[in-house]
């Protein structure tokens, strides 16, 4: 016996059709292009970057922008442009790691809470409430301090801190979907809990989750930049945009221009993730229909 996933919530057309419609939205097109270029840049960094991101050259420390160093050099004589290019990879890795962890922990818990109800829901909901009461970055700093300082630990901490956001949304979506007629139908045919969740609830609850994942990527990026700025994320000599800002800040009265490039990189990338999320929401989130 097999029950296909019904198209109750509509708008589940083929991927090419979705893409062609989605990319007609100029905001979505710009954001997607920017993010694809950024991914390409970070993958091709060894070939594109003019210098090594970690090679020091004290003779040229704190140099103004020139043809040799388009964005100048930092206090250790490292090429700022190269560090910016390599930094993109660390930022993207960090964002995807944190959001993957948040999704892998949060979404299943939310699904279970919403689907099983009763005491499971009460317990999971209380845990969600509790974790949401912590100022995110503060708890992340605490967890990072405990696990040991470093980018991966920092982003595991951020992922844990974000997981209740995913859980709450997955729970709310499940509550909506589980009362749909097709779920009742599948249940009355004897579908197992696992099958109900995996085949019927998840596919129909997943669209708002995709939107939330995109928006969380922006938050994770900002969290990584903050942690690296504070010295709790990417560790020197590895390049990171937040870490570059921390150094630029120390030498702000000598070379004030150096604080702009990394800040703009963070701002643009966060803007792009958010713009992508907002555009996706228009197409994917059923509650946004007609707005």
């Amino acid at each position: 016996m097999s029950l296909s996933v019904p198209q109750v919530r509509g708008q589940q057309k083929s991927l090419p059709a979705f893409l062609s419609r989605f990319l007609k939205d100029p905001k979505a097109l710009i954001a997607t292009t920017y993010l694809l270029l950024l991914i390409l840049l970070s993958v091709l960094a060894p070939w594109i970057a003019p210098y090594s991101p970690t090679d020091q050259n004290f003779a040229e420390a704190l140099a103004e922008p020139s043809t040799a160093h388009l964005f100048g050099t930092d206090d250790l004589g490292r090429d700022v442009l190269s560090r910016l290019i390599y930094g993109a990879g660390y930022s993207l890795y960090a964002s995807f790691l944190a959001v993957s962890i948040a999704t892998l922990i949060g979404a299943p818990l939310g699904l279970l809470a919403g689907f099983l109800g009763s005491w499971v829901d009460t317990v999971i909901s209380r845990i969600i409430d509790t974790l949401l009461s912590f100022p995110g970055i503060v708890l992340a700093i605490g967890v990072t301090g405990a696990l040991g300082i470093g980018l991966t630990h920092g982003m595991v901490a951020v992922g844990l801190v974000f997981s209740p956001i995913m859980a709450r949304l997955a729970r709310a979506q499940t509550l909506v979907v589980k009362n749909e007629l097709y779920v009742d139908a599948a249940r009355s045919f004897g579908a197992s809990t696992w099958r109900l969740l995996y085949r019927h609830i998840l596919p129909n609850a997943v669209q708002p989750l995709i939107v939330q994942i995109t928006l969380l990527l922006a938050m994770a990026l900002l969290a990584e930049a903050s942690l690296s700025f504070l010295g709790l994320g990417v560790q020197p000599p590895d390049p990171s945009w937040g870490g570059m800002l921390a150094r630029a800040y120390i030498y702000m009265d000598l070379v004030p221009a150096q604080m702009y490039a990394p800040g703009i990189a963070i701002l643009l990338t966060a803007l792009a993730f958010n713009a992508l999320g907002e555009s996706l929401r228009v197409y994917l989130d059923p509650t946004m229909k007609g707005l």
Partner: protein
Amino acid sequence: MKRIAKSSIAVRRLAQVVPVMVLATLVVFGLMHIVPGDPAVVLAGDQATGERIEEIRQLYGFDQPFLIQYWNWLSDAMRGDLSQSLLSSESVSVLIAQNFPNTLLVVVYAMVISLVIGVPLGIAAAIRAGSAADAAVGALSSVGVAMPNFWLGMILVSFFALSLGWFPATGAGSITEDFPEAIWRGTLPAVALAAGGIAEISRQVRSALLEVLSSQFVRTLRAKGLSSRTILWKHGLKNISVTLLTVTGLLFNRLLGGTVVVEAIFAYPGMGNLIVRAAINKDFPVVQGVVLSMVVVVVLTNLIIDILCGLIDPRVSQK
């Protein structure tokens, strides 16, 4: 009758706070136990002797079962004893009492700025939905949300402190001895923090107001011949007050987190600098104390806001 109903909401909300508090304290206490390896060895530091490690183990009760340790820690914490800093041997409660007021000053200051600027922007955008002004507010709030607050802080320091010299670049004033000075020195950190708050508030006010203005009852009021102005001020804003309160509560939580990073820019003596220094130096009692006091403040704020929402809007209390 009415009074009974209202006090029972407060009681019910209080009853919900208890499990959240228990879980929150468990999380804070658990921080010490996710440390890889033996916490006593970690706490004792790199050059510790076996005796010192044993001493620490006894002092923190690591030789006892988890729940007993938790209970001892919790009952000490409730008496205001949050143990001592491993770095300076100062009492953690004293450190928090010294630093928390500075942080709260900046957070409340930033919240006031967010509301004073964000609410009018949101109203303006909603009543002219679809106009250029609406688009401008939307763009501004997109940038505000995506802007790293510490970077904005750096830009503010560069212009208003270093170039123009209008504000001091670093430090805080004493709240009790010289309040105007404290406000003065808190201004740049508060502005850096408020950018995201303005964005969030204006966005939420806009969408809540749009929803109210497009609802059935507003249509009826319009049909009755009420002017747009009366509808907005008398009915529109009254109906978004609960949304505004809820958003303010969420914002408080976010600003409290955001200040941690902003304080680093301004070398501002608050909870942020306290916890960052402690996390880098593995000074766990201080880390726990900061996280604990912040979560307690957030939970209590949420409680007050929930009760206020119930008082303002009877529909909330019927849920």
